[in-house]
């Protein structure tokens, strides 16, 4: 993108540009993203401020973005990007920041549950090829140490036939697992 100027070499903004094609310089801080964000008031940095942190190309501010809770709370509802006058694909940037934050082990402490959820979710798919809800929930409880959550809900769900006791393992499960491992290896290589 012609509007992109890379003043600081290998800043987080630069990496974002290389990997997603999104330029943080495009944001002119109008705040429309934060105005529409369902979680703007729940987070540590509203979305426009995440971009502001990245716009400096400064490693201290970059780290703040990586350690923010916002990137984990982002619901990817895409309201921001759908309305952004500068066509910044903020969810794409959030994805990148999440992946980096997770990879570098800099995730916000409050994001523990969220990461636990993602781990349980992906673990479930890696095992069987599909998401096994009951197994996933149990695994999540184990990871998040949140044993009491939804204790009353589960029986109701079971009663209504909404939770299966046994996972469904697809024929291509091995292939799916290879796929997981290969992408993990690739991620390792680019690190």
């Amino acid at each position, binding site marked *: 993108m012609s509007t992109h100027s890379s003043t600081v070499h290998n800043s987080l903004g630069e990496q974002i540009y290389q990997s997603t094609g999104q330029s943080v310089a495009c944001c002119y801080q109008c705040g429309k993203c934060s105005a529409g964000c369902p979680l703007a008031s729940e987070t540590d940095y509203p979305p426009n*401020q995440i971009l502001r942190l990245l716009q400096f190309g400064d490693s201290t501010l970059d780290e703040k973005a990586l350690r923010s809770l916002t990137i984990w709370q982002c619901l990817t509802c895409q309201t921001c990007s759908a309305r952004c006058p500068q066509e910044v694909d903020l969810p794409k940037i959030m994805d990148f920041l999440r992946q980096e934050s997770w990879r570098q082990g800099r995730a916000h402490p409050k994001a523990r549950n969220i990461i636990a959820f993602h781990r349980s979710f992906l673990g479930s798919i890696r095992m069987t090829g599909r998401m096994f809800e009951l197994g996933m929930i149990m695994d999540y409880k184990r990871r998040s140490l949140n044993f009491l959550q939804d204790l009353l809900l589960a029986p109701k769900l079971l009663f209504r036939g909404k939770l299966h006791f046994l996972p469904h393992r697809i024929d291509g499960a091995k292939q799916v697992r290879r796929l997981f491992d290969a992408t993990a290896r690739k991620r390792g290589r680019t690190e």
Partner: protein
Amino acid sequence: MSRIGVFVCHCGENIGATVDCAQVAQMSSSIPGVVHSVDYKYMCSDPGQTLIKEAVKEKKLTGVVVAACSPRMHEPTFRRACAEAGLNSFLCEMANIREHCSWVHEKGDQTTQKAADLVRVLVEKVKRNRPLRPIQVPVTKTALVLGGGIAGIQASLDIANAGQKVILVEKDPSIGGHMAQLSETFPTLDCSQCILTPRMVEVAQHPNITLLSYSELESLDGFIGNFKARIRKKARKVDEKLCTGCAVCTQKCPQKKIPSKFNAGLGMRTAIFVPFPQAVPNKPVIDIENCRYFKTGKCAVCQKLCPAKAVRFEQEDEILEIDVGAVVCATGFDVVNTDFFPEYGYGKYPDVINGLQYERLASASGPTLGEIRRPSDGKIPETVVFLACAGSRDRAKGIDYCSKICCMYTAKHAMLYRHKVHSGKAYVFYMDIRAGGKMYDEFVRRAIEEDGAIYVRGRVSRIYERDGKLIVKGADTLLGGEPIEIKADMVVLATAAVASPAAEELAQKLHISYDSYKFFSEAHPKLRPVETNTAGIFLAGACQAPKDIPESVAQASGAASKVCGLFSQDQLSREPLIAAVNRTAPPQYSSCTGCFLCESVCPYRAIERETITTRGGKPIRTIARVNPGLCQGCGTCVAVCRVKAIDLDGFSNSQLYAEVRALA
């Protein structure tokens, strides 16, 4: 034998920092025919030009190549210099080593080599130039002004007051344009109509101005000084000469519920109507789309009641053909349409309105007689939210530019609201406040400091209606992006100013260029801001870019003075770069075979048929001939001519051939 001089300009650092100019001059000296080759810091400066003039005289040059900026910039300068030294000005060419070389490449040997190549191309070209004399053409001293807004009115009056004839064409039934719709004007809060209507009347009464309202340009042919305009005078269905403007018809028309364009859809009008009370001309028009008589064949109330018997249902459009010498294009702007802002409910919620609609609400002549009442229920709103940059500076909506007038009129809107509704709250969401202009920033400060408008820096994400209120969801970026929700009674969007939907078609009729937003392009962004690339056609007002009133008026006066300058001469001289059919010795007389392909490709009908006869008058053969008055020099005929019997001065076959070969 050619004696060519090459003059390489450094343009200060502009060329010199990237291209090794001395080396270019040195390389050029070895081109066959080049007898003189120098480089100099600023060729266009007086000493630079003197350098050229002296070399022309001393070295008896037969051609000059100046390697400098684009010929679109300084070709006239250097040609004049050559002429002053006694060299025919058409024996001077420019090699563009700035815009096409030094500015677009990095410093290096390859860039210097490119500059040298470009010089060589032009040296080979100029060797084949021949001395030419400008063509003289007469000037028709009548100006055509397109658009009767403030810009068109100002241009017309200025030209007419200078003693020249003007034909003012307005597509709507009345002149006045957007300015007639405005309430009060920033930064002085003059009543818009109070300052505009006297000018409108002056136009109508001026002996030098012919006003063609409710008319549109069909086509424009010809060239500077000699245009032929065809104008469609749309049928008003009312005889303007007989109509006295008594308004009986408009009062009695039974079809009363038609949204009035003048009132931006907030008021109603009849099917036979005068757009507003101060309209010029103050003669009604029948809107046949909505007229009961035209829809059902019954009614004709207006015709029956007209005391002057002026209603003419059978009236047809009329096409007028007019000779004009210059055109001022002042066709103005538009505001973006309603499906533009789904997230703001614009077009869905009646109380989300645009700036122009607000002007009508605030105007003493408007549908609410100047009281701020919201459209849905006529209540006086207690909280009004104004959104600046509604669509402007919005790449996602295809409008990257700043509409320029919104910051000021939004401040004015907030101020007017606070003046009229003392207890009301006015919020303005903005991104930046752009108030450059005489007394402009002071005006905005006044809105904030004295009139208590609350400015919030941030864009609004969404507006929805709940319990009769409009919920405005914004964020305050000065509070770190904190979400702000305001329950408003009315929302005013400062919608972007865009080119009129007919702009593209008009530009094509006028053969003028336009930018990617369909605003018309000036010939030079700084130095020729009122001219277009088509000689004899000038720009005024917001058809070129969004502008406020003082700017539009200034540009209109500028365009008018350009027209008057043009009309101050009886004859124009024109570049003689035109085509000609060769003539050879008998028995051929020309290598033209008379296939007349050139005739059918010529856009100017400049190709004529000429019969060559014996002395006794017996026809020998018929060949093509170019009418030099009509030819504009596009050269399409040259490319289709199989035998190359037709050629174009300045871009001749031998020149272009030599230019290509120079790169071998």
